[in-house]
Structures are given as structure tokens and as C-alpha cells.
């Protein structure tokens, strides 16, 4: 726990100087799993794709920052209350912006991100297929 925090401070990732630590025990669901394995699996899958606001290189599932623990508590509580993971993600995005989700939406700002690889593949394919020999052209590429 404080290993990760220490590691992150050392690696210079923690953005705000955490001069002091709170002295409260972690929120109940920060380090405790839901009893229902199916719900826990949903929560885990969601937490793996939410970005920690303190240790910004990690998901809230991996981060040991207290705020990440509280966010895990929030996510697990909402899942336990029967909320759907997509709705929880939307709820968080409404507060912290798309930054908080590791799964970027498809919109004007991310069109290039999602379509870029396809365009690359198409261009590459078009160039490559020009190279293939058609029919029984046995010549050594004379054209």
C-alpha cells in the first residue's frame, strides 16, 4: 500500500505533494470485495479502467492513494446497489471528464484515435496489394 505510494513519490508521479496522510482507516470497500462474485467481477472490470487522480499512471484498482480507495468504495457500493457499470462510468465522467476513464469514447476529439489504425491499415493494404503479381506473370517485375 504505502509501497506504491512511496514508489510513486520516488518516481515523481504523485502530482500534489502529499505532505501528510490522513489517519482514518480505509473505507470499507476500498480493500474488501463484494460478496457476490459476479458483482465483484463487474466492479473489478470497471475499476481497472478508471484512472487514479492522485497516482496518475495507475488505475484506481492498482493505486493505493486514499482517494483511489474511496473511489473503489464508491464503485463497489454503487455496483452493490444494483447500478450498471456504464452508468457509473458516465457518472464519474460527468464529474472528472473523459480523463478519468481509460476507455476513450468515440467522438470528434477521438475520431482519429479510433479510425487512425484502420486508415493506416487501408493505406498500407492498398500499397501492398499493388505489389502482388497477378495471374501467371512470370516476368521478374519488368514493367
Amino acid at each position, binding site marked *: 500500500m504505502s509501497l506504491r505510494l512511496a514508489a*510513486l513519490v520516488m518516481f515523481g508521479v504523485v502530482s500534489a505533494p502529499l505532505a501528510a496522510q490522513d489517519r482514518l482507516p480505509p473505507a470499507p470497500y476500498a480493500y474488501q470485495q463484494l460478496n457476490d462474485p459476479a458483482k465483484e467481477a463487474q466492479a473489478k472490470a470497471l475499476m481497472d479502467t478508471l484512472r487514479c487522480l492522485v497516482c496518475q499512471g495507475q488505475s484506481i484498482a492498482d493505486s493505493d492513494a486514499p482517494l483511489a480507495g474511496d473511489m473503489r468504495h464508491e464503485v463497489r457500493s454503487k455496483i452493490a446497489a444494483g447500478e450498471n457499470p456504464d452508468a457509473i462510468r458516465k457518472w464519474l465522467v460527468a464529474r472528472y*471528464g473523459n480523463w478519468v476513464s481509460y476507455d476513450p469514447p468515440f467522438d470528434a476529439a477521438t475520431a482519429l484515435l479510433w479510425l487512425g489504425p484502420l486508415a493506416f491499415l487501408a493505406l*498500407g493494404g492498398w*500499397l501492398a496489394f499493388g505489389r502482388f503479381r497477378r495471374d501467371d506473370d512470370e516476368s521478374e517485375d519488368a*514493367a
Partner: protein
Amino acid sequence: MIAELGLALLWIAAALACLSLIAGIVYLRGGSKDLAALVRPASVAQGVLTTAAFGLLIALFVRSDMSVELVARNSNSLKPMIFKIAGTWGNHEGSMLLWLMILSLSGGLIAIFERRLREDTLVATLAAQAALSIGFFAFLLFSSNPFKRLPVAPPDGQGLNPLLQDIGLAFHPPTLYVGYVGLSVAFSFAVGALITREIGPAFARAMRPWVLGSWIFLTLGITAGSYWAYYELGWGGWWFWDPVENVSLVPWLAGAALLHSVAVTATRNALRAWTVMLAVIGFSMSMVGTFIVRSGLLTSVHSFAVDPERGTFLLVLMAVYIGGALTLFALRAGTVAEGKKFALLSREGSLVINNLLLTTILALVLLGTLYPIVAEAMGEKISVGPPYYNKVAGPLALILCLVMVAGPLLAWRKDDGKKLWSRLPLAVFAGAVVLFGLVLFGGKVGILPLLGMTVAGVVAVASLAPLWGRNLRRTPLPTWGMVTAHFGVAVCLAGMGAESAFIKERLVAAAPGDVVKVGDFAVRFAGVRPVAGPNYTAIEGTLVATTPGGSSFTMRPESRMFPGLLGTSPTETNEAALLTRPGGQLYAVLGQPVTSDDGRAERYQLRLWSEAAGVVDMARRRADRARRGAVDARACAIARNLARAARAQGGGTFRAMKNRWVLFVPLAIMGLLFGAFIYRLTTPAETLIQSQWINKPMPLFDLPPATAGVEGLKSSQLADGKPRLVNVFASWCVPCRAEAPQLEALKNAGVPIDGIAIRDRPEDVAMFLREYGNPFDRIGSDMQSSVQIALGSSGVPETFLIDGKGIIREQIQGVILAEQVPEIVAKLEAMK
């Protein structure tokens, strides 16, 4: 004396690099042949001297010579010897010297062993290698001198980052570096061949062993790094799609693509311009990777030190080398014929598709890594993580694996579809068996892991197909190498799929004596005891794991504490304990002590993972072994491969490329990349995440009083017609203390202020108010940050401006400064 000698050797080696470059250029421009004769010995001497300098740096670390700044900062006399040695490259300067040593040594080795190339191409190659090393010599000597002395030697050093004091990680960077820098040789060969226009099988054959060697080292380096992350970081994962991991993957992908295309060029004299371009791209990506890691350009768990000056230096070096090589490519490659043609359904055809897919994956990894920078420049903050890569790269990788099934079974030039099918039934059958097995018995498995394991089954069988019906003793080593490597891919794929499909995680706070069931294991927590290591103290947990078969095994995960040396802060690391059984692997991490509410039972947080399916871990270990097998087999194979390839070349007339503009595409893409880098270097990343919950009503909440004698806070109280401030603070937050006078001033100006105390205890809040004053009308206690999260607030202190209707109008992050006070008063006044 050692340090001074080391520095002197570096200067001499740098001078020799200049000599090689100048002599090479003059010779190539029609100068005397005697000059060419200078280049070989100069390259060899440069390699020897740089290696000697690196040896001297190791000697300084071994002797713990604290008068050298680098040693004092990164070593300690108490450290075990192996980590003293590893400390040599566990820091910026030392690792740059290691980089340079490998670069120079590679040049020396080409000079000694390369006899196949034409003399002028060889001189051009060595000159290119010298040009590369001159830049890095300049970087080292002018901005990162490893041999710098301290005016006064401290009594002892500050030690090595404890996380890095691990045998696996000690050798992770050098392995990766050999891979990275090995690609520099391919780069220099490509530049040399472009200069003298000798692009053909001879050039491809000269380059091939280097590409193979560096790709093997990259594979080993990445594997070692993932394994280190798996057991040392205690996160239970091995790949996080973190920027630094991505930039190590990109050269690997380029290397894999190059390895396949160079085979086509060497064997069939085709894909020539493409091979040259990949050779340039491969090392370019190595430099980009080093730059990103060394400059701290991207937010990552791995970024070591942020140093804009060094970052700029590296950026300029990269711009010169990559820009120069790609410009040369764009100008010259038009005159390079692509070589012999072939049918789509042929060995070459499958290798082209392989290259297309590998480069597309390369491009998308790079795009995903750098896109957040571009988006930020356009005013959007986004994060790109595992879901993106799984969705986009996952399917491409699976298609790639299917191509891998067919490729090795196809004949060169042209093959028949029916024939191909006749070779596949067994492989398809294996895939079907895996698929049905998983669907029937696997429980709920995600679509990507399901497809991954199915394809793994197909690939595993098909990869062995080239051996069928052959006399195994007479099968050439390259075929063995290919079969082993492809089989390794199948095993790796099976491992990845099974890992994500079958892993079971248990997080528990256990008291001694507690038994936890995880997967098929029953784990009893026996207790903890303190242990002392050479330079750390630790709490060691004892866990007794019982397998379904009834046998018991003791596991001892540790939580280690390294004392801070000479003013550095102490560091904790976790040593996970791994138990590998035929039934699966159990992974245990000992976490923090948990004190229960009554304060009696001392419990410890435990993290347990079990990989239920036995296949997983075996698969992963087999993948490692297979890859290592591939290393041996393929390394031995080089010589014979070359001999065989030598026979398979023909002349013929070649067509020059028609679409010349295409040749400038790589240069343009690199230009965009550099644009992003320059933007990031000049505009540092904004790490504060602003709330998007602005111009929206206050979320509903009802918080109890944070301490005795103050009122709690309800959201309904905030819409009483009076604009006000809501201050999010905590008694444990040091900056909040600095903010107290400004809040006092605001209160005196008649501004109503309410407080939300985050994760705080009543007695601490009371003490805070006594000491720093109480400007608050009401203070709600937010024990689990739930209101903070609902507000989109990401830290303390933060202040929200609320209008009379309870609508949030503005967020101020961090401490309110004295000069902001009148501004805030005016803004609230305007809301009335």
C-alpha cells in the same frame, strides 16, 4: 585516478568517432583509399576504449568510491556486491554510458567481422555508426558526465532505489539496451546501403543476424520486466499498457516486422525499400523510447527523472538522426526497385501481410501513447488505456496469428489455396477442441480471451507443421528456430487468454489463524515475524497453502522497509510469494497491518491471486522456455541461414517506385511525432484535473458535523439565496494551513463559507480549528470522500463558488492566494 582515466578514455573514443566519420565522408566523396583503411581500426579502438571506460565506472561502484558524485548518489557501501555492480546502470548517466558502450562495441564488431559487403558500403555503415555515437558522446560528456567528482566526498552513499534491488531488474535494463542499440546497427546498415545504393541480398544478409540478436534481447528484456512487475510491484499484473511499457513494445514490433521482411530481401531479393525503411524505423523507435523514458515526457509509473534540458538535447539528437535518415530514404528509395514480384498466396505474400499488421499495431500503440498529448493541445483531456488497446490491437494480433498459421506452410513466389487447406485440418481441429472445451467447461469467459485461447490452439499445432514428414535431424536450424518462436507465440497467447479468463483474486484482512479459500487453494495465515536483511528490515508473513490434493506448502511474502539514507525518505517494497503447482499458481502479497475497531486483534491485509486453470502458469513458463529455446536455436542458425540465403538470389531488371510521394510519408509521420514532443517539452503536462461539475446544482448530500460544536452540512442549505464558498479541506493537509489566513480575510469581507472535511477525525478537526481559526459557518464530515467525488474534486484544498440557487459556478484548486481574495469577493457579489 580511475574516474579521470575513464573520462579521458571517453574523450579519446569520441575523437576516434569523429575520425571515422570524417575519414568515411572524405573517402565516399572520392577521397583516397587510405582513408577507408583508417575507418575499421578506428571503430574497433572506439569500441574497446568505451568498453574500458564502462569497466572503470563499474570499478568505481565496486570500490564504493564516494568521491564520485554518481556513486555517492546511487550506491552505498552496505549494499550486496551484485547490486553495487547493477547500480552502475541503475541511473541516468551510467545507463547512457552503457548505451554508448553497446553502440561503440557494435561498430567495432561490424568492423571486425563484416566481410560480405562492398568496401564503400561498409565504410558508409561504419561512418553512420560513428555519427550516431558522436551525438551520444556529446550528450554524455557535456550534459551527463558519469565520472564527475564531488569537491568533498560524503562518508557514504545514498543507495540504489530499493525497488531496483532485485536480481531480475538488475539485468532488465542492460538486456533491453542491447536490444535497443542492436537495432542501431540495422539503422547504420540501411543508411550505408542508401548512400552507396547497394540494397540487395548482401545487405540484408549482413543485417539479419543483428536484427535477430537484438530482437531476442528485446524479447528477453520485456519478459524480464513483466515478470519483475508481476512479483515485485505486488500489483498482480504483468502488463499495464503504460506509456513506458508501450515504448519498449514499439521497437520490439519494428524488430519483429524487420526480421520477417529482411528474410524476404535476403532470400528472394524483394521488399527492398520496405526493409530499408523498417531498419530506419526500428532504431528511431528505440531512440524515441529512450527519449520518452529519460525525459519524463509522459505520465507513467516508470518515468525516472524529469529533466527538460537533457530532454531537449536528446530531442535535437533524434531530430538530426531520424530526420536525416528518413530524408535520405525519401530521396534515394525512389531509385530502389522493390524487387521481384510474387503472388498474394505465397510465403512472401504472407510475410507482407505480417508486416502490414505488425506496423499497424506499431502505429496504433504509438498513436494511443501520444494521442493524449495531441488531444490536450486541442483542449481535450483524455486517457487511453487497456480497453483501447484490447479493442483495437487485440483483433489485429489475432489475425496476425492466423496469418502465422498459414505463412510457414506456403511456398515462395506462388502457392495453391487447396494445397494450403490440405495442410491445416489438424490445426483447425485443435482450435475447435479448445473452443468447445472452453464453451462447455470454462464458465463465463470473455470474447477476447476465448478467441485468444482458440487461436493459440490452432497456432500451437500449425507451428509444428513445418516439421511434419521431415527427417528431424536434417531439418535446418532456421526452421527449428521459426517453429520454436511460433510455438512460443501460441503458448504466450494461451497464457494471456487463460490469465485474464481464470484468475481469482481475494483481498482479505486476516488475523493469525484465519483460513482463506482462493481458487483451489486453502490458505492459512500463520502470523508475521520481523526479519532483518543486509540493508533493510522486513515483516515476513507465513502462509500455509493447502492444495486440493492435500499437500501443504509454506509461503513467506515480505513487506520490506529500506531506511532513508542521507536525507532520502524511507521506502517500502513488497516481495510477493509465488507457489507454483500443477493445479495453478498462487500469488500472495502481505499488505499493511489493519487495526480493528476495538484495537484488539492485529490483522494484516492479504492479497491472494490464484490462477485456477493449471494450464496458465505452465503455459507461461513454457512460453519463457520456448522463447529462450528460440534464442539458442536461432542464434546457431544464423550462419547456415546465411549460406542458404546466399544461393537464392537472382538479378533481373527492377522497376522504380511510381508513387514517390509515399516515400515522404514516414518523414511526415516523424515530423508530427516531433511536433507532439516539442509541444510537451514547452507546455508541461497539466496534472490538475478540473471538475466538470460546473454550472450544475450541488449534488445532494447530508453530512454530519465534523467535530463537536459546529453544525453539519446539507446540500439543501446551500440554496438560500446567498452566494457562498464551499471549502474542501482536511486537518492533515499541510497547504490547508497556509490557506487559513485567506479564508479568514474572506470571512471578514462578509463572505459566507462552509467547509467539507475530508477523511478526518473529530479531534483532529477541533485541533485544526483551534490552531488556524474557524472561518466556517458549518462543517460537514466526508469520511469516505463521497461528496468530494460527487463534486469532481480531486484534492485538498479546493474551493467552490456557489450562487444563491445552489449552483456551482467555479472551482478553485489549491490554496487561495492573498491576491485572489478581492477577486472572489467581487465574483460572489456579482452573483447576487
